[in-house]
């Protein structure tokens, strides 16, 4: 099945607006109930495409596309839709602000207890979590941009006041999320001889070199990152890396790190939250944090001027961590001259856990880095190989056998222990079931920067296969119709899940569809070979046409003029587009060549009969 991002997104919007409104009122909560993350995800399903894709804009009611409006009928007409959304956003901000004005980022019902006999305590449920900071950053940026543009169409004082109020509160939530992200960043330094050090060295040493050499190489590779990390001044993760013999890793913990220093800022972010997360990077939360930080310095954020000066300062601090983390993991994942550690699936974390999912997460960071550095196709092909294998191993492009343990990775999901959470209740875990969609998103990401048609085709056909899998996982009926996730549709062993949509999964599909739509918007790859051939053909055709013109210049050519003019028109058009779309130009040239050839043939025929 061919992926059609626009149609798919419209379908999702139709389903989201239908599922989320009852009797004209917005209802929160999906499969896992309502919490600060799930509600953010639910809103993002609408706000993200609206802010990222011009075809889905709803902030200028005069310009909203008809099919977009039609898909949102449940929320009202072009004028009511933005007003409804503002109301919903205000409700969201009310729900997730404490009485003393502190923005709340609690994991709530997404926290699961390890002990079936003991539920997660209320205190634990209220713990802030990186997933929520990250989703909030993305959502708040979408909201701020939306309001900024929408405001220009508004004349009524009352509505304007409401917009300004929502805007300042969204901005406060954004600041708080950024501060919290700065307080959850962590660096873990360890001795090469420690268990962690040994795991790391085993991972990077793919060629069987002596450990001492590997450590030296690794230290050299990481010199820049280490220097950068030592210079970090605000937030958590200020660790003494002066001892050059220590190895380290960096990234985000699952929440605010225990005893994390406060972030000095003039911004109003409410009273600071405490944290109990350990000073260890968690791959999953690192990737989640990195994804949202890119939104902070995206073109849209800059063009619309969504951040004020103080926020810009926080964003810069986050961007530095983003750069360093990205660089660190790419260096590790692609270390050495032989096989990359990344290619040695499954990835092993320094706490000695291994999973295909970790390989996927590291790939995600590598891909993000490749997107930035515009890597060559040789590198991309190796990453494509990893993606390919992950798809096979995860039973996405291969069938699952009976009682296949791999299937558990999709449903219920990968169990991710939240170390340190047992300080105030039973130890908790996080359930991650986004393997397939994350894999798809990264595949699409690599495809979008591939320079050769071959590599691109390889990745796109993999993406198509994964999409088929994802598409099948849509809920078939009930309230979640056309939304996700129903893994029992593809894995026979799994019991059908509830029909209520999972916003966790659906939001990620939306994110993917948006990036796919952006890829289709871009110009097709220009094949230099095709360009050359088209150029040669064009010059032949133009030459033949000129000859034909000479022959028919006399008056007897009158009847043929329309034909010649159409050939000329085609060739002119071909000349105009030959650089941008050589294939299309060739189609036009072919037609002209055929017409010219028929004329030549007819003349030869006449000459031959003499």
């Amino acid at each position, binding site marked *: 099945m061919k992926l059609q991002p626009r149609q798919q997104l419209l379908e999702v919007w139709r389903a989201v607006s239908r599922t989320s409104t009852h009797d004209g009122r917005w209802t929160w909560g999906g499969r896992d109930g309502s919490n600060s993350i799930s509600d953010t995800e639910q809103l993002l399903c609408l706000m993200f495409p609206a802010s990222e894709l011009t075809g889905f804009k709803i902030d200028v*009611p*005069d*310009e909203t596309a008809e099919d977009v409006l039609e898909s949102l009928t449940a929320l009202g007409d072009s004028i009511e839709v933005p007003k409804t959304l503002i109301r919903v956003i205000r409700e969201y901000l009310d729900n997730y602000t404490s009485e003393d004005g502190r923005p709340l980022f609690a994991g709530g019902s997404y926290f699961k207890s390890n002990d079936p006999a003991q539920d997660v305590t209320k205190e634990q449920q209220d713990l802030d979590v990186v997933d929520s900071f990250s989703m909030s950053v993305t959502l708040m940026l979408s909201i701020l941009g939306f309001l900024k543009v929408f405001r220009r*169409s508004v004349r009524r004082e009352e509505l304007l006041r409401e917009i300004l109020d929502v805007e300042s509160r969204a901005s406060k939530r954004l600041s708080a999320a950024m501060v919290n992200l700065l307080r959850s960043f962590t660096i873990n330094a360890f001795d090469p001889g420690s268990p962690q050090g040994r795991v790391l060295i085993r991972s990077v040493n793919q060629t069987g070199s002596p450990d001492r050499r590997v450590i030296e190489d690794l230290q050299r590779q990481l010199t820049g990152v280490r220097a950068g990390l030592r210079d970090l001044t605000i937030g958590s993760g200020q660790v003494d890396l002066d001892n050059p013999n220590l190895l380290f890793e960096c990234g985000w913990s699952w929440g605010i790190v225990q005893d994390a220093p406060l972030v000095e800022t003039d911004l109003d972010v409410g009273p600071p939250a405490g944290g109990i997360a350990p000073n260890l990077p968690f791959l999953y939360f690192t990737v989640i944090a990195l994804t949202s930080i890119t939104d902070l310095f995206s073109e849209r954020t800059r063009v619309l001027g969504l951040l004020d000066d103080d926020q810009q300062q926080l964003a810069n601090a986050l961007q530095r961590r983003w750069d360093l983390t990205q660089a660190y993991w790419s260096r590790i994942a692609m270390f050495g001259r032989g096989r990359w550690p990344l290619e040695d699936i499954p990835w092993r974390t320094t706490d000695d856990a291994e999973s295909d999912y970790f390989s996927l997460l590291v790939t995600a960071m590598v891909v993000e880095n490749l997107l930035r550095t515009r890597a060559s196709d040789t590198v991309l092909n190796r990453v494509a190989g990893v993606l390919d294998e992950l798809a096979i191993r995860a039973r996405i492009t291969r069938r699952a056998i009976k009682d296949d343990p791999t299937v558990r990775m999709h449903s219920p999901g990968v169990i991710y222990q939240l170390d340190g959470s047992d300080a105030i209740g039973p130890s908790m875990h996080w359930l991650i079931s986004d393997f397939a969609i994350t894999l798809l998103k990264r595949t699409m990401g690599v495809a979008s920067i591939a320079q050769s048609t071959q590599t691109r085709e390889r990745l796109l056909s993999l993406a198509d296969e994964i999409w088929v899998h994802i598409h099948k996982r849509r809920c078939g009926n009930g309230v979640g119709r056309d939304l996700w996730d129903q893994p029992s549709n593809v894995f026979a062993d799994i019991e059908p899940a509830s029909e209520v949509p999972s916003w966790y999964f659906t939001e990620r599909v939306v994110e993917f569809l948006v990036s796919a739509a952006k890829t289709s918007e871009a110009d097709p790859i220009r094949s230099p070979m095709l360009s050359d051939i088209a150029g040669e053909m064009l010059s032949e055709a133009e030459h033949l046409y000129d000859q034909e013109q000479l022959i028919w210049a006399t008056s007897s050519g009158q009847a043929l003029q329309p034909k010649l003019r159409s050939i000329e028109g085609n060739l002119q058009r071909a000349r105009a587009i030959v650089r941008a779309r050589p294939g299309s130009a060739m189609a036009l040239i072919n037609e002209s060549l055929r017409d010219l050839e028929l004329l030549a043939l007819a003349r030869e025929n006449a000459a031959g009969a003499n």
Partner: protein
Amino acid sequence: MLVFAISDKGGTGRSVTSSNIVYRRALRGNDVCYLDFDFGSPTAGAIFNVSTAERGTDRGGMHSYLQEKVAEPYRVDVWTSSDRSALRGKPPGAGQLVLLPGDSSGGEFPTVPSVVQQCVRLFLRLDEEFDLCLVDLSAGRSYAADMVLAATARPELAAIPFRWLVYHRWTRQHIIAAAGLVYERRGLLDVGAAHGHDKRRLAEQIRFVRTAVVEPSSPDLSALRSTQLAWLDECNRDLHELAGRNRVGRTAMLGKVPLDPVLQWREQIIVDEDVYASQIANEGTTRAFDDLATKIFDERAWEGL
């Protein structure tokens, strides 16, 4: 309520759409009247198939009344006077449907204070009797438009709500012309302000109605070539952008009427029979009329942003 219908240029379908709106409102039980203020060519009677007023009346129409030549304006009860069988006979539950035609030999006449005063008197009287008085003005700037702007600015009419519908076709020229008619120098807002209207409040009472609209997504277009469809789609996008820039966009729009062959060839009231029995007219057209008839009274549609 008073509703003034005006158009940027001739041939937009202003009269026929207005007549249909009035007719739809009457079917829903409202007492409605239709005032033909198109002094240059009073032909509203033709739309309702009232032969006695096909080209206006000579028994003292709007012209004579406003210039105080007659004491009472001539009134036509459409339900009893229409020649069209589908319109004759008041359907059960329907309200009054009255037409106030112009003079057959009339023409434009300048706005003098006495005319405005007479106009105020007329609106006051009619408002007592009818739920909706639709005043059909001519195309473009006219004495009639000037007169009603003057009249509605008078304190006597302060309590009577009024609204303006500006009809325009969905083309570049019409969009620009419609915006000009309202916003430019000597446009409705300017003239209204000169008569004492508050410009902003007046602007809130003005909405645009697009007529003869061809939707690129409409199934009626399946006969077009794909290149024509692609072209049409692109044009439509351009027009939306142009309309938005000229403040004629969706936020300022009350509704739109699709292109309908029946309205193209003959300006008439479209009754349900035309849609469901003979099927000469499209259902979408009556839906659009109904929508407009609803929105004229719907506060939310006028609330705006």
